[in-house]
């Protein structure tokens, strides 16, 4: 099994007629995702790769029936309206791919989502991918790129024990998956929570999902400086709400306060979100924190034990 995405989920793509929307729809399908409808205002009646396009999410729901997830590929300035439209049409999970979504827009989406009992992943997320053989794998977003690459990268030789991956960096989500998979560690789901400072489904929330996923034996975290996601994960560990082993790497040790290296989320503001504080909190709560990213596979293998055949 997996969390968040699997081939049974019915997916809508908002912005399906755009450059990225069109290309990613094809790639998502090739990897096994069930894309049942698309949306672009003014383009209703067209189709993309045989997928019907609607003007509004409400129309898509009416025609296609149940939509489990909407993947949003519209320009950053339009994300707020697109997301709220989907939530108001009854979609309970959104994936907000675009970078540069204004912060107050993200908070407004969160406000509306809370009112409707909906959740969102992102903004600024590469997506979520559940690997597996054909027929059992699915992806939302851009992660993995071509289906054949994703299968090669994430379906390693041996799958006795599996880990779930949670990352604040898009590229490093794939890297974690690849470097673990080629050492024989199975992967349940890879989740890029998004690079922004306010994200809808932060590390601790995803960790709780993995805690309740029968096919996840341990949780691998690529954390970063800034914000409080890693500290809140430590709280879950300390209070026993997450009991599975957590193996983490925290990036940005050398970054100076107030200097941002690309992610809006990876910035230390007012002394909060420092590297040392995150490492201390996680270690005190029982997590394993590796000093170098390259140390991650060995740490995971030693914790999962000898059930992994390398």
């Amino acid at each position, binding site marked *: 099994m997996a969390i968040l995405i699997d081939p049974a989920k019915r997916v809508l793509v908002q912005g399906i007629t755009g450059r990225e929307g069109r290309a990613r729809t094809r790639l998502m399908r090739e990897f096994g995702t069930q894309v049942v409808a698309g949306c672009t205002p003014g383009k209703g009646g067209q189709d993309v790769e045989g997928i019907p396009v609607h003007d509004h999410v409400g129309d898509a729901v009416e025609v296609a029936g149940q939509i489990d997830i909407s993947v949003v590929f519209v320009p950053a300035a339009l994300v707020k309206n697109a997301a709220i439209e989907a939530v108001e049409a009854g979609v309970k999970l959104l994936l907000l791919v675009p970078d540069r979504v204004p*912060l107050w*827009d*993200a908070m407004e989406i969160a406000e509306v989502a809370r009112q409707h009992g909906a959740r969102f992943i992102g903004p600024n997320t590469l997506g979520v991918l559940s690997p597996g053989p054909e027929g059992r794998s699915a992806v939302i977003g851009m992660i*993995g790129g071509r289906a054949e690459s994703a299968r090669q990268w994430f379906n390693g030789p041996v799958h006795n024990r599996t880990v779930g991956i949670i990352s604040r960096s898009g590229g490093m989500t794939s890297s974690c998956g690849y470097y673990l998979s080629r050492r024989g560690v199975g992967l349940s789901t890879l989740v890029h929570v998004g690079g922004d400072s306010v994200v809808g489904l932060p590390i601790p929330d995803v960790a709780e999902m993995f805690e309740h996923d029968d096919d996840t034996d341990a949780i691998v975290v690529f954390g970063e400086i800034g914000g*409080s996601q890693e500290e809140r994960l430590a709280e879950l560990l300390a209070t026993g709400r997450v009991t599975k082993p957590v193996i983490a790497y925290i990036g940005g040790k050398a970054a100076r306060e107030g200097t941002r290296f690309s992610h809006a989320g990876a910035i230390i*503001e007012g002394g909060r979100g420092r590297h040392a504080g995150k490492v201390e909190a996680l270690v005190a709560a029982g997590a394993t924190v590796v000093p170098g990213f*390259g140390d991650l596979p060995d740490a995971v293998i030693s914790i999962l034990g000898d059930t992994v055949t390398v």
Partner: protein
Amino acid sequence: MARLHEHQGKALLREHGVSTPSGEVVASASQAAAAARRIGGPVVLKAQAWITGRASRGGIVFANDADEVESHAEQLFTLTFGNFPVTELLVEQQITIQQEIFVSLSIDDAAQSPVLLLDFEGGSGIEQRAENVHRLPVTAAAGNVDRAAVEALVAQAGIDASLQERVVDAIESVPHLARQIEARSLEINPLVTTTDGRVLAVDCRITIDDYAVFRHSELGIEIARELDHPPTHLERVAYAVEQNDHRGTFYFAQLPTDESESTRGLVGFHGAGGGGSMMSMDALSNAGFMLANFCDTSGNPSAAKVYRAARIILAQPGLVGYFGSGSGVASQEQFHSAYGLAKAFLELKLDIPAVLRLGGNSEERAIEILAAVNEHVSAVVVGFGKDDTPKACAARFAELVEAAKTAWEPRPRSLPEYVGHCDSFAIDAGRVWINVDQCDPEATAILIEYGGGIFRDAGGYPELAVTAEDAASRDSELIACEIECIRAGRPVLFVDLLLEGIDDDSGRPVGAFLEEKGG
């Protein structure tokens, strides 16, 4: 996190009905004295600087008369905080404070919501007393705080009853203003009541969400970046590139290089993705190098964007090498980036080593494209893939730098001789030149193969298969055509991407040239 100066923040507060001490912004000591005379009475001089602990660092000075103002102001204008010289002072009337209140709007990432922090003990040391601070929720859509809750807190704070309503008004204005200007943080420290019965914001710090700056031209923010120095020429050039091309992420910042003498040399750094970039920078630092800059092109950037980033990196003198590295397992097709890099290296006749870790989709093709550059430049250019660690790439880079012992000198592009004398068409921020006379069936076949439908065969010669408008945004395919033609020994196409702020220094007029010679 674009920052506003105190005086800018105070002007915004006044527009929202929050009073501030009467004052003026000045840029010279004589202006300061004149302002003090107009304000009358004792004044305070406040250096406009983005630092914490401004008072303890000598940035705030009290003065009793105009003579004192002038001499103190002269002194303040000699100060530099970090890399920022003091260029503006705020001259304000002195006030007599009765009570201080700390008011701060910030973003609670856990609650995914804005939050208003209030502390009626006021003043400094707020971090230490964080537990006593009242936290009030703020709505995201409207920027509202529960007024009754503010009133209740103000009523218990021992504030003069006649001033309480005005204090509540001022506090309520903070989230409203923050919402309107899309602030990441808005802090009044302190808001005060005075002995003469006024309610005033004495200091104000505001940062604006970088991603919202585009819809707030009224704030006059030149570069939406939290740089620790005034923006450099190259940072301005890079910022303009990003504003004009939103395909993928582009970020460029120059780093302090004062102590490069004690290292193995300055490196032009080109990352892809924040997480991978940070790891790669660590690998270079651990190998003994100093980074001249941070740069990130990620999120499926076009070849033109990667090319422009490389050009900007290579506008920095003294580099001992060029190092690029991302996450190692990129979801995007890596050959676009490889073409962009190859184009920059070829045009500039690269003569310092370049190591690029381009792991991810189509990495083999990306590495091959970079390897081909070696036939045309004196530098060694090497590509690596996902199974090569940043550490191993940094080690290889160090070997190449030791062997080369060269330092980069920025230079103008070298252009093919046919540029300006052959067919051409305009594309976004540039022009494509095609030397049709030299096109044979093989060159034409390359253009068709790599052009992604832009070109078609017109009897052994290429012609546009789409409208010029449609071709205008296809820079990735056009750059692929250029590089593949060079690789095949048939250089018939050149994508002329002028970089404003860099290429106009080369003596070649930018716009005029394109207009005159364009076909």
